[in-house]
């Protein structure tokens, strides 16, 4: 046994990290309208109710449209930025990258009100499209973080070999670079999809009359009787995001193995 006390602490900390997620299914299957102990027995009725909530279905549909669009757009932007930052030097590089990565540390409320003011000022009505704009802003830094790792592990000599063999920059990108970074791209798509699906504050400010899933969940917290249904929904979401993330992690590792790199860490 290595690590001694550190090991015990580490397992204790994992328990702390997972405590809410472990409780989630307990209350989602609990046959009581009040979310508290003692438990009242097993039921799946909260899950059954998920099927008959039209507002929930509409919110889910909005969220899925937004998440698909935001993940594709932000990954495209991420490819540009990651490629540029790993291969080229240009004036103001640090400043520009810093600006693009800013949403990673800036409180979301500030991004949300800033976008709200500008969109209303220009006269663009709030809808799922405005949420997409906001989510792309939030997702792009994460996409860049994943893709920079993918582009960095590329061997430059592969590219040069392609040029020497007469390929154009465009065909080199398509034939050599793209296949090698594809795992990174898939990983970025899944990650940004998950972030967008879960993002609340931007959607809260920018969605207008078209709520997303988190906005719907937030509104339901006001009504104690609908909380168990929300927890059932949460259980489904947690299972779905763990599956998505496991796939993302698989592709990230495969990508690193493919380019012959050493696995140095997680997503961020």
């Amino acid at each position, binding site marked *: 046994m290595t*690590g001694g006390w550190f090991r015990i602490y580490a397992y204790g900390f994992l328990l702390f990290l997972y405590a809410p*997620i472990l409780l989630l299914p307990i209350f989602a299957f609990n046959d009581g309208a009040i979310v508290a102990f003692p438990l009242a027995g097993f039921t799946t009725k909260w899950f059954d109710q998920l099927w008959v909530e039209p507002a929930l279905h509409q919110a889910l549909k909005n969220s899925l449209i937004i998440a698909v669009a935001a993940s594709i757009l932000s990954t495209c932007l991420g490819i540009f930025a990651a490629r540029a930052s790993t291969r080229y030097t240009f004036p103001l590089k640090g400043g520009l990258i810093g600006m*693009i990565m800013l949403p990673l*540390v800036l409180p979301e409320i*500030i991004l949300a009100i800033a976008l709200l003011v500008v969109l209303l000022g220009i006269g663009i009505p709030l809808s799922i499209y405005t949420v997409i704009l906001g989510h792309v802003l939030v997702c*792009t830094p994460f996409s860049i973080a994943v893709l920079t790792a993918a582009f960095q592990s590329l061997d430059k000599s592969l590219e040069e070999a392609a040029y020497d063999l007469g390929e154009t920059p465009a065909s080199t990108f398509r034939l050599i670079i793209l296949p090698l970074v594809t795992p990174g791209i898939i990983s970025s798509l899944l990650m940004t999809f998950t972030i967008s699906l879960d993002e609340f504050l931007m959607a809260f400010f920018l969605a207008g009359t078209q709520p997303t899933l988190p906005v719907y969940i*937030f509104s339901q917290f006001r009504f104690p009787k609908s*909380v168990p249904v*929300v927890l059932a929904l949460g259980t489904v979401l947690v299972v779905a995001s763990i599956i998505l993330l496991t796939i993302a992690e698989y592709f990230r590792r495969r990508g690193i193995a493919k380019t012959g790199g050493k696995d140095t*860490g997680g997503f961020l």
Partner: protein
Amino acid sequence: MISPTALYALLLLAAPLATIFAYSFLTDGYLTVDPIPTFSNYTEAWTNEVYRVVMLRSLGVSMSVTAATVILAFPIAYYVSFYVEPSRKSLWLFLITIPFWTSYLIRVFLWKVILGFNGVVNSGLMGLGVIDEPLTFILYNTNAIVITLAHAYAPFAILPIFVALEKIDRSFLEAGKDLGETGFVTFVRVTLPLAMPGVISAVMIVFIPVIGDYVTPHLVGGPEGKMVANLVQVLYLKLDNYPLGSALAVSSMILVGMVLVVAAMQLAIFGVVFKRVAPATPLLLAILTAFAAAQALLVVIVALWLTTGNAVITVGLGAVMHIGALLLLRKKGVMA
């Protein structure tokens, strides 16, 4: 190549942020924002008791969250970096990041369930006979906010510290041991300074966003736990007072910036003093001396504030004195 992304960020990030900044100097009219430049929003934000209390509370909460998160995160990062086999490290990191990816709203709500009157903590402790009545100080106040946010931001603190620890050349540590130092001394003299870049980025990545968190104070903070973001939301969506809302948002960022600058100054003084006294004094005494020297700056700033009551004088004189002290210490260090 970077142009599309930079353009997007320029249009939808830089321009809106500049707009917010501009709005914070405008006058709020009925249903309109009048283009009359004014400082009154800032005067209101910094002197009105309601806003001042909330801003100071937000600052206190984010400082506590940052301290708790970073201190709790360090041993985890240390364990994963130094004790976990290399082949299992990414599994550990994956396990640490998973909770972060699951619905934030639902996680926060579950903390309410855990900390509540009939919650997990209370029924557990009562079941064990540790307490007779449910604890009430753990929900609907700032304690609950700190616990919940420390949980939510844990991965953001663990990962940068882990990355910094991974970069440490292990032979330095062996060198420390070979030279007869104990494990603790090696940790303080070698590991900790080399891990500082990771600790600093952990502090930044937790401290800045936490001050603007909306969901956690709303759900677990109760009426006495409102933070800046809750006020900004009310000012924006309910009261339609964009200029004051913008001024509050900008003010909270100014506050964050000031705290970070003071912290950076303290760190700088600590480093310089420690380097000067460490060779000749026992380790613990050197740490205490450097710490006291760093705190002297804070005392000066507080004293300036209390005697003059003027923010400009406090900031200006504090900065000048700090730079002077640092230069003086550096110079003496060279001479010695």
